[in-house]
């Protein structure tokens, strides 16, 4: 079971690549498509590897990413 999960608001994404470079788990990759503003947006390529560290959200200049983290048992 993945330890974390992210949601990318593709219409906010400007394809800057900073989240791809920062993710320690190689979860994120460019999509084959463009968003409503004409940017080649990013998507989760390996969602099962996400650890919910939040790094991608922190570096995103367009605040396009929401991050979830699995809580430990009993928490």
């Amino acid at each position, binding site marked *: *079971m*993945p330890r*974390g*999960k992210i949601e990318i608001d593709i*219409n*906010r994404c*400007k*394809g*800057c*690549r*900073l989240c791809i*470079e*920062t993710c320690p788990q190689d979860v994120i990759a460019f999509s084959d498509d463009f968003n409503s*503003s004409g*940017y080649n947006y990013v998507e989760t390529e390996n*969602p*099962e590897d996400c650890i*919910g560290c*939040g*790094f991608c*959200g*922190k*570096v*995103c*200049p*367009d*605040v396009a*990413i*929401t*991050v*979830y*983290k*699995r*809580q430990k048992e009993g928490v």
Partner: protein
Amino acid sequence: MSEEAVAENTKEMKKVFDRPESLNDQQFSYCPGCHHGVINRLIAEAIDELGIQDTTVGTAPVGCSVFLYKWFDIDVIQPAHGRVSAVATGAKRARPDLTVFAYQGDGDFASIGTNNSTHAANRGENITTFFINNTLYGMTGGEMAPTTLIGQKTTTTPQGRTAKDYGYPIKMSEMLAELDGPTYITRQAVYDPKRIDKARTAIKKAFRFQMEDEGYSLIEFLSACPINWGMDPVEANERIKKEVEEVYPLGDIIERS
């Protein structure tokens, strides 16, 4: 794992990172990879965490961040170019109960507005100033600013800045730290998660000084302008680490409280 299974798993997951309340839903108009966006978000997060959304007034510069009033869900005043520290002074003196910040580019803070920013610091005005140093004028097409590095090519120094013709990169933070007025001056960067966490801590500290009536704080940010640096955002982050930090070292410069 299928998309459905991932979605199912979200139920046991806690949201650990989301847009701050103090930003509204509007899209920033910054270029891809521009650090103004990260800095705006960090300020909004600090406002949320301190619970001061309803009592904070921002002052926004002329420059790429001119539209702070569109993006922040707080009151924002947008003065004439270079007059941000002066207008923030007025707002704070009229309403000392509010938390007032000045947000200024290096053109605004260190060029056209040097007089206003210097005297606000010297008076020890009880405001929090964010000075975004991206080593040139972003909005108008990448001209040289007083902060431009020696050798840096800009649209007005196509051969690179020389000290002989244009002087040296101005170290506003070190300069203002020589004055008796300021309480807290620090230089921060936002190119990786660790730096971003430190910058957020510095922003909160600066707001707290104001809330405790301790006087003037300045946070200088080394900020990427990938488009005018002619680099992709990842290379622009590297330039800050390798070149810009050499001239403008990171860390606290003064803290007197």
